[in-house]
């Protein structure tokens, strides 16, 4: 009993809970909260940890029973082999180009469109906004056939001919279609939170509408832009189904497809799949970490006094 008490005491101290100054029920509630959060973090990270462990096991040791959860004979051979045996650098390049171009388009158009929806009161703006966002509510799978048809036989616009099938452009257009509505929605809501008196002050200070937007409003919108960028990038980076249907060779295939290629009809190359999975996961995580620093509250703090 006394050991239990002291273990609990150590745990409480380690979590920084101040039993002298807090009510006992507050300490108990915090312990429960920590427990639940810990469980949540475990559920999120365990699969990633397991893939990592698998990716550094020798190929033959992957399916050993009992399963080892700790690296016993760590090796980087899986990583080396996937780049040697497959054009993984091409897949990575494709993913980078597709995801960053999509992100750039979505952020640019989403910001401008969101600002317009937030500031301009034009006929049918609510209906138009709903229809833009509503289009995104259709399950993507329902649009696979139309997208495949369009990309294979694009309508002739200004002399543009030929099929977009198995090109990065096809993926960029498709991912923009899916992400732009969210980008518009997020940015519109973000701009709604920026007081209009700042636009007006900019106009009085001598800015045109566009100058005021670029010089005053946009710098304040960094958190919204970061959120939009993260969503668009991670969606495009991870997307699998459309990439599978719209591409067929390494000139356009992205990392998720590359990883899936380790699954053959009667054999799964788990070790290489895990290494490929880690490669595929890493840039997304880095991108997210980089941009989340901009998602800080209070960037507009001090602008106006409520």
């Amino acid at each position, binding site marked *: 009993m006394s050991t239990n008490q002291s273990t609990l005491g150590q745990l409480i101290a380690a979590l920084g809970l101040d039993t002298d100054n807090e009510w006992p029920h507050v300490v108990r509630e915090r312990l429960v909260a920590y427990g639940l959060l810990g469980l949540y973090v475990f559920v999120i990270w365990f699969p990633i940890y397991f893939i990592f462990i698998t990716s550094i096991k020798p190929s033959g040791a992957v399916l050993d029973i009992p399963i080892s959860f700790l690296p016993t004979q760590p090796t980087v051979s899986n990583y080396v082999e996937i780049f040697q045996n497959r054009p993984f650098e091409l897949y990575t390049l494709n993913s980078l180009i597709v995801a960053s171009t999509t992100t750039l388009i979505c952020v640019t158009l989403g910001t401008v469109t969101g600002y317009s929806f937030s500031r301009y009161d034009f006929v049918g703006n609510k209906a138009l906004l709903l229809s833009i966002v509503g289009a995104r509510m259709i399950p993507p799978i329902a649009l696979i056939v139309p997208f495949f048809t369009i990309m294979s036989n694009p309508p002739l616009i200004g002399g543009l001919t030929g099929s977009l099938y198995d090109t990065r452009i096809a993926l960029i257009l498709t991912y923009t279609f899916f992400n732009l509505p969210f980008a518009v929605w997020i940015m519109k809501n973000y701009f709604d939170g920026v007081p209009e008196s700042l636009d*007006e*002050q900019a106009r009085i200070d001598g800015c045109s509408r566009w100058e005021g937007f670029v010089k005053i409003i946009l710098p304040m919108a960094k958190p919204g832009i970061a959120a939009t960028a993260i969503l668009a990038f991670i969606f495009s980076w991870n997307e699998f189904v459309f990439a599978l249907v719209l591409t067929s060779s390494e000139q356009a295939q992205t990392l998720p497809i590359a990883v899936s290629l380790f699954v053959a009809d009667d054999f799964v190359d788990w070790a290489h799949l895990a290494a490929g999975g880690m490669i595929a996961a890493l840039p997304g995580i880095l991108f997210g970490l980089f941009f989340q620093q901009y998602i800080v509250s209070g960037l507009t703090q001090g602008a106006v006094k409520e």
Partner: protein
Amino acid sequence: MAHVELNELVKEFDDVTAVDGISLDIPDESFTVLVGPSGCGKTTTLRLIAGLERATDGEIRIGDEVVNDQRAYERDIAMVFQNYALYPHKTVRENMRFGLEQHDTAEDIIQDRVAEAAELLQIEELLERRPAELSGGQQQRVALGRAIVRDPAVFLMDEPLSNLDAKLRVQMRAELNKLHDELSTTTVYVTHDQVEAMTLADQIAVMDNGQIQQVGAPTHVYSNPQNMFVAGFLGSPSMNFLEGTLGRDSDGKLQLDLGTDTHDVPAEFADELEGYIGERVVLGIRPENISLNQDGIAANVHPATVQVVEPQGEKTVLELDLDTDQTIKAAVDPDTTVEMDDSVNLRFDRDSLQYFDPQTGESLTYETASEQKVTA
């Protein structure tokens, strides 16, 4: 410096008429306050002058120019917003510089002007901080500073003090007064706070329903309201209105029949009120012009019962029921010792009476009353 002139100015939003044909002359170097309840059109009027809204009809002149079709930045105005609208990502210095930079002002002039304004407003220490690091009062100063550096023809201020706490508001009010004395820039100031209006203005325009009800020097408007709206809006507690029927007493003098009580109309109003005999007339009397009759003279007193006693320090406000069942407020000397349910006799200061037409709300005695005050 410039005078501002509004001619028959109209602004409609969809089916709402926010500004309904107002005409106003704002003299050069004046401090003109637009005051009125919320929704009266005062802020819209200011925004029309600023060029943030386009007039539906009418004319706005700044100096000798009609500016209706000019953009905000072409109008040589600076505006202070109610919420200050400081750029949060810029420092105080950058906030103040921005307008000048946009107007391609030379660097040495920018530096001089910012330094001058910062000194004037005592915000030199704050120049490298961002708005979020400033207190409300400091933000307010920066907003003023940003307007001052522009050295505009007209300052437009939209309730600039309403977000400050009471003590700071009084302090900033005094500073605004001082600032206007030093700069003498034509200022148009919007507020719903009548104390602010009275203390700051050298010309006050009382607005209601998109229209100007009365324009004039603050004390003149306060003492000589042209209608019941102005009379009731200015002053706290507001003017008392007692309605009765105008008739004559046994001596043939004008008398207002208030029901169970009567009120003798001073002789100087006889000419103006003659035509209203037999009709309903409203008597207006400010609380501070009512006193308790303690010397026992019976003429011109109104018996009442004390309902509420509110000591406010410099005065005590009484809420009383007249015998006629009308409720009236009186602001009396704080040393007055009365309690709830006390019976008292009220005496109305006969130099401070107003009479109104209950139908139109217009003052019936405006001319006599204002002349009287001029001669007095």
